[in-house]
């Protein structure tokens, strides 16, 4: 495709580059999100407090050490990435569906010099950015309570970013099937909620029966939690490369399938 080809009175036809297009989509989402910065930015700081108080303090006094850590330390490290999962999932299920079916935002965007692929890569990256921001918020709170023991923890928001990408890709894939907004309930109740409880956040997976551990290993969140804990406690093992690889393959696989399916819905 020769994009710099010129026509008699058309002037040079040079559409924006891939990078510019994806960035513009990302920027659209950032603009919309930051319009309500207080109401959007507040929850990620408060939710970890509720968690630490509600489960950490309450349950923590009945639980002994886990892998040599107090329960509240164990829990604090676990809750860095779930908000990234939840925010990316909401963004790319309900958010995407509303943009697709109700507000027709994509129809407006696709009329400019963007492709469907640009729109959804930009959207996945935005969800990742939110994941990064949410993980930062949690990290700030738990650090404020002295629940971070290793300086390596500063890298955990990057895992929040990858977590955001991963769940955005999965959520877009789910959304590509959904015709009625209420159908998301199945996804939340059937997948997202169990994933939260069986990914080693509130309790370690080691004591689960073997089949349950295998199921947990399929859950993308478990891999993110393992990586985050490694950074929080500065204890790394070669298995982490497998966790990282799982996440990257997951993003590529579900992301590309989602974009393919959503393209069919937008271009007819």
């Amino acid at each position, binding site marked *: *495709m020769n*994009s710099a*080809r010129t*026509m*008699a*009175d*058309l*002037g040079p*036809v*040079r*559409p*924006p*580059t891939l990078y*510019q*297009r994806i*960035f*513009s*989509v990302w*920027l*659209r989402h950032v*603009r*919309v999100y930051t*319009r309500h910065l207080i109401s959007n930015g507040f929850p990620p700081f408060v939710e970890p407090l509720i968690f630490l108080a509600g489960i950490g303090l309450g349950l923590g006094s009945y639980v002994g050490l886990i892998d040599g850590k107090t329960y509240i330390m164990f829990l604090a490290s676990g809750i860095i990435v779930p908000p990234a999962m939840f925010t990316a999932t909401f963004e790319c299920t309900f958010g995407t569906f509303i943009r697709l079916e109700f*507000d*027709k*935002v994509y*129809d*407006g*965007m*696709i*009329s*400019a*010099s*963007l*492709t469907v692929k640009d729109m959804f890569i930009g959207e996945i990256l935005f969800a990742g950015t939110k994941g990064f921001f949410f993980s930062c918020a949690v990290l700030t709170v738990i650090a404020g309570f002295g629940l971070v023991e290793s300086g390596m923890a500063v890298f955990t928001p990057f895992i929040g970013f990858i977590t955001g990408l991963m769940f955005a890709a999965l959520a877009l894939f789910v959304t590509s099937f959904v015709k009625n907004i209420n159908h998301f309930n199945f996804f939340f109740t059937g997948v997202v909620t169990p994933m939260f409880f069986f990914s080693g956040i509130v309790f370690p997976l080691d004591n689960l029966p073997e089949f349950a551990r295998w199921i947990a290993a399929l859950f993308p969140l478990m891999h993110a939690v393992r990586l985050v804990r490694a950074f929080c406690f500065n204890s790394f093992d070669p298995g982490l490369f497998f966790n990282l690889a799982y996440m990257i393959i997951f993003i590529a696989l579900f992301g590309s399938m989602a974009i393919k399916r959503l393209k069919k819905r*937008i*271009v*007819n």
Partner: protein
Amino acid sequence: MKELAIKAKNVHKTYGNLTAVNNLSFDVPRGICFGFLGPNGAGKTTMMKMLFGKAERDSVQGGEVSVFGYDPKESALEIKFFTGIVSQEDNLDQELSVIQNLMIYSKFYALPAKQARIFIQNVLAFMELSDKKDAPIRQLSGGMKRRLLIARALINNPKLLILDEPTTGLDPQVRHMIWDKLRDLKKQGVTILLTTHYMEEAFQICDDLIIMNKGEKVMQGPPAYLIDKHIETYVLELLHTGDKTCDAKDAVRTEFMNNRMLLYADDFEIIKQISDQFKAGDFILRQSNLEDVFLKITGRKLHE
């Protein structure tokens, strides 16, 4: 031959068993306003969408489409770069204000911010929306939203403007304003494509138009030519005739619609004489218009 903006040849588009566009061919010279007329479901919008890749023509025997030399199948991005698109539905970003909508949209074309601000000021002034620039979309009336959609489509200084029913549902003031603006744009050399089912609109602003029905081109030509060629000059509409019909002379063509009877003739005297048999209020005697051509061609029955 004048250089073409758009060339479409034997275009086919099917959705499953439904043929939306059937063997449609047309040429649009640069710098004119070209209209698609037709009842709902005639394939107008589908044809428009195929020009910028929002819909794809059939992969087998779909025909050929060229927009300023680019095929939308491969180069939709290039086409959209120099085209402004106003869709039927309001697809403004509800979450943002007027100016934010335009700022973000300018980013989709990678316009530098400084240049974008000047362009935005210009398009807002052109569409007479300057004093609404900070308003949230929710506060805009239907007419303002449509004007903003047009302003947004102009932000990339398009060579081609595609409008899908630009004035549907708007009040007469806004409608005339939009027509004037489209005429201005045409004078500036922008090629304009629009769909409409307002005959008045087509008559007012289109230099050339296609009447479509069931995915096919039924006729093509400048509006005045179509009227001249396809319909008698005068119409006598007899209202609530009921069972009572009028004895039409041979020189008069008659049509029935519900309980109305329509008599067409080129000779004014003939239908004037017929109308004399009726009392005022029971008939309308007028010149024929594009709507008469349209109804004659596409039939008077509902299409839905």
